[in-house]
């Protein structure tokens, strides 16, 4: 069974045509991989489907805009994967 990171990295590689081996846990989706907000909708859709969750993108965006969070907290892939794991766990609780 693949890890959350492997699933997310494969989604990003396929959705954005980014070489899989350049996608690392420490990669920032926006700053390092150059993913824009429209492409991230496709990624969010694929993640929502793959994990049966709903990434709270609006809440995250609001928190970043309000200065309550940094983009690194949500868009560095290892952090994103931690949040996905949390959402999956919450769903099963």
């Amino acid at each position, binding site marked *: 069974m693949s890890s959350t990171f492997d699933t997310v990295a494969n989604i990003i590689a396929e959705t954005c045509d980014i070489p899989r081996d350049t996608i690392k846990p420490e990669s920032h989706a926006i700053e390092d991989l150059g993913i824009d907000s*429209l492409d991230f*909708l496709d990624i969010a859709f694929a993640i929502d489907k793959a994990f049966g969750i709903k990434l709270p993108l609006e809440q995250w*965006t609001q928190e970043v805009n309000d200065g309550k969070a940094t983009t690194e907290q949500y868009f560095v892939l290892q952090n994103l994967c931690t949040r996905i794991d949390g959402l999956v766990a919450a769903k099963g609780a």
Partner: protein
Amino acid sequence: MRIEYFQLIDRIVGLDTSAWTIDVEAVVPLESTIFEGHFPGQPLMPGVLLIESMAQTAGWLVIALNRFERMPFLAAVKEAKLRTFVLPGTTLRITAKLLHDGSGYAITKATITAEGKPICDAEITFRVMLFPEKSMRHAMEETAARIGFPMQALADG
């Protein structure tokens, strides 16, 4: 349809907020200034307007599911297929289904048929956000009344 004004839906035939589907009717006008250029002597409904009509149809579904609190803005059109020519006077049946209700976005699938035959289809993505201005919401509510938006469906839903 008043295609010069982007009024591409004549009436909502069905709206099911439980099944996430909508069904509308639209008649391509016999005359329009758009046909003077598309094409001279051979009027055809522009494909981009067929895609827009699907986006408007799916958009009304998203508005309904958000109970007029949020507005969908066209973000992406994928796998758009324009399968045949559409002539002035054609009655179109446009249907859409919500595939995914994301956080701040919606993924839909829309289809146009005429007399049961497929005309075009596409997957359409919207960004969904609060109305930027109250006036925009009021304008949408006025349009909703014109096209027979079933407000009762929201009350029941």
